[in-house]
């Protein structure tokens, strides 16, 4: 009874992973981006004297330590967008039509796509965390293990956002522009690079944008989880964003709607 759906999920995830791993350049690019932030940007940026103490930190931290969760989020954000890029590609090549005609509910197939994208993102985060630990960023096993569910949830939420975008955007060419409009504001208007109080100091409005940005909550969820703590509001907002994005994506992929917009 369950064998068919399980096989379907397995196939979709394996396909996505295979595709990812066969593109070695993509794997490297995904790692180089956050590593440049960590090793170059953070190293030169007030790194040595420490940031003032904010939860969940108990003492002064280097800037490298501060941006680590944000960079994990960045990897998941890019990976989520990239998986939606592959969805657009699938649609153009006809693979998507083949997939969606499978005798399984549409939301289930899209959910499997979501899971596939999340797995790919998590592989990249794992590689990144390994390099960060070797570089000398203090990570504990307990922290990494407790961060895993947070990372999974954030990966799903950001892939759902990608799925939603792919439902709306038809052509590959347009997608690059959409990515810039989504990735950059989401990343810079969040707590990934600066704590919220720092934003607040410069502008209340910017701080407000940071607060409503689901990416901020994803980053904070990961940040607290890395110290074995649960940030309940961040969890709530991330789950809500996941539900909303995924719901809209399923709605956007409805065959009736597809026909109309075509």
């Amino acid at each position, binding site marked *: 009874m369950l064998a068919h759906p399980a096989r379907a999920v397995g196939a979709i995830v394996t396909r996505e992973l295979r595709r990812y791993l066969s593109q070695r350049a993509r794997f490297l690019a995904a790692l180089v981006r956050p590593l440049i932030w960590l090793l170059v940007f953070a190293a030169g940026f007030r790194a040595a004297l*420490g940031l003032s103490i904010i939860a969940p930190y108990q*003492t002064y931290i280097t800037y490298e330590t501060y941006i680590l969760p944000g960079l994990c989020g960045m990897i998941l954000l890019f990976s989520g967008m990239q998986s939606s890029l592959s969805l657009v590609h699938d649609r153009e090549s006809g693979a998507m039509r083949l997939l969606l005609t499978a005798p399984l509910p549409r939301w289930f197939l899209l959910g499997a796509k979501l899971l596939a994208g999340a797995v790919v993102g998590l592989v990249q985060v794992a590689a990144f965390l390994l390099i960060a630990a070797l570089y000398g960023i203090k990570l504990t096993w307990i922290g990494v293990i407790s961060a895993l569910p947070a990372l999974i949830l954030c990966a799903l939420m950001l892939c759902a956002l990608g799925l939603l975008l792919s439902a709306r955007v038809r052509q590959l060419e347009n997608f690059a522009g959409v990515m810039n409009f989504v990735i950059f504001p989401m990343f810079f208007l969040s707590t990934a690079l600066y704590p919220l109080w720092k934003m607040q100091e410069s502008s209340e409005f910017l701080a407000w944008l940071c607060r409503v940005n689901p990416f901020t909550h994803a980053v904070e969820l990961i940040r607290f989880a890395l110290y074995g703590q649960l940030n309940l509001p961040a969890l709530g907002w991330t789950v809500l964003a996941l539900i909303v994005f995924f719901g809209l994506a399923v709605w956007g992929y409805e065959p009736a709607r597809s026909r109309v917009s075509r």
Partner: protein
Amino acid sequence: MIRTLLLCTALSLPAAADEIWVTNEMDDTVSVIDVTTLEVKATYPTGERPRGVTFSRDFKRLYICASDSDAVQVMDPDTGDILHELPSGEDPEQFVIAPDDRLLYIANEDDAITTVVDTETRKVVAQIDVGVEPEGMGISPDGTLQVTTSETTNMAHWIDTTTHKIVANSLVDSRPRHAEFSPDGQVLWVSSEIGGTVTVFDVETKAEVGKIRFEIPNIRAEKLQPVGMKFSPDATKVFVALGPANHIAVVDAQSYAVERYILVGRRVWHMAISPDQTKLFTTNGVSGDVTVIDLATLEPIKSIKVGRFPWGAAARPTP
């Protein structure tokens, strides 16, 4: 998580715990930190501008340099009451208590004098002329030599404690702030704040045997201002507080190589080691807190808010 909670519950019982006492220079108070909960459990008022702080060997009295009150205050650490004051000369900044638990050697910053006070008779035993702006105070473990460093003269003055006369002077780099004998009494470490160095002397010959320099990427050299120093419990390492560089340097006591730098709060001055010898507490003046460093991993684990401009620190085992 559950373990921490259980631990906290167990500790919230009124059971006495080891303490770290910290003087708050701008608040005119001392803060008492519970070593197990890592929280401030009491704050007591003191005279004006408390800086140097130390316990008597039996931990029944706390001596506080109340610099702007021109007095050394004696506090009962069980009640926080000031029992009496000792004559100290003007502007006492730092002091050191002799191993016999009786004589207190006090640096009088404004008068270029080291004052020796008998804590029992409460009388000045001797006043020794030293260089300008004396501050760093160290005493050899056997109590035969006391060293006063003078900030402006840039010297370490070696004082014979039987005659109370200077027996030797050693030049060091600019603005020496602290002097610390190794626990075996073989070497003396002197930190120079402006010079940015620590000079190590052989006690027997009084000759310089080593000089330590510091370097942290991204921090300007003039910010590396060594002040307080503390030997690790096993005497294999020396912790050096680097002032506005916001770091503690961990120096190998044999090779004088800097092993690592530990990030703490802003403008770190002095340190105390918990009586169970597992944690190091640093006073961070500008950020107004005390950073706790785990001595096993050499990682900072927590920073505790205390009063404004914490300066000196002293440890007291469970009463």
